[in-house]
C-alpha cells in the first residue's frame, strides 16, 4: 500500500514519515506533497491506499482536497486521516462530513497517531493494505 502524506510543513512531513517507517511502512511506499494540488496529481498517477492530510494548506486546502478525492470513484472509500491543529468539535465534524475517515488533533505523539492508522494497514504486506 502506498501512503500519501500531505502537509505544507516540511517538518510535519518528516515527523509523519518517521512514524510510518518506525511502524514498518517501507520508505519507498511513502509519498508526500506540500499542498492539495500536488497531492491530487500524485493520487491520479498511482493507487494510494492511505492519505494523511493536513487541514490548512495553500492552493488547495485539506478540506477541498478531501472533497475532490471523494468525488473520484477510485478514492470513494480510501481511508483519509485528517491531522489538524483545529481542535474545536465543529472543525472535526466538518472534516468528517467532508468525507474524512478519522481525525487526529495536533500535537499528537507518533504512537497515538499510529493507533489511529494501524487498523487501515495490512500487516501481511509490510504495512500495505
Amino acid at each position, binding site marked *: 500500500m502506498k501512503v500519501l502524506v500531505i502537509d505544507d510543513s*516540511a*517538518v510535519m512531513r518528516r515527523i509523519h514519515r518517521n512514524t510510518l517507517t518506525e511502524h514498518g511502512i517501507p520508505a519507498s511506499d511513502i509519498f508526500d506533497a506540500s499542498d492539495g494540488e500536488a497531492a491530487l496529481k500524485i493520487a491520479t498517477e498511482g493507487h494510494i491506499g492511505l492519505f494523511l492530510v493536513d487541514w*490548512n494548506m495553500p492552493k488547495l486546502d485539506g478540506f477541498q482536497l478531501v472533497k475532490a478525492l471523494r468525488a473520484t470513484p477510485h478514492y470513494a472509500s480510501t481511508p483519509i486521516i485528517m491531522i*489538524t*491543529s*483545529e*481542535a474545536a*468539535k465543529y*472543525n472535526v465534524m466538518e472534516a468528517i462530513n467532508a468525507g474524512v475517515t478519522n481525525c487526529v488533533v*495536533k500535537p499528537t505523539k507518533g504512537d497515538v497517531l499510529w493507533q489511529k492508522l494501524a487498523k487501515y494497514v495490512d500487516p501481511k504486506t509490510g504495512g500495505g493494505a
Partner: protein
Amino acid sequence: MKAKYINPFLAASMNLFKEHLGVDVRSLNPFVRKDPTVLEEVSGIIGLAGETTGAVVLSFSRVTAMNIVSVFAGKTYTALTNEVLDGVGELVNIIAGNAKKDLLDFRISISLPGVIVGSATKIHWPEGVPVITIPFDSNLGSLSVNVSLKEAE
C-alpha cells in the same frame, strides 16, 4: 485586552511544550511590551480575523528555535535552516489552532503561519491595543508568546 483572550494561548503553549515535547518549561509573569517591534530573533506569526482580530507571535532566540524544533522533529539542527523556520511556523499553527477551540464565542479565522527572522517591524499589530508578552523559561532556552487582540466594534 481581557485575560480570557490570552489564557487559551497560554494553555495551548504549555500543553505543546510541556506535555507534548517534554520541555521543562515554566511561564513567567506576563507584561505589556513597550516596544512591540523588538522581539527575539525568530518569530512565528499567526493572524486572527473575525470578531476578534490581531496577532499571536511566538518569539525565540536563534538557539532556542533550533533546540525546540530539534525536539519537535526528532532531528538535531545546528543551524537556522529553512526547516527550522518551517518548524517554528508549525508550532505557532498548533498553538493557535488549539487555542481557537477556547475562543469559540468569538468566531475567528486563523491565517497560515508566517515566520520572520530579525527585526519584528513587519508585524501588523492591531492599533490601539497593547501587546501582552507571556515569557517562558525552559531547559532549551527562553521564548515568549506575544498576543494582541482587538474586539470588533
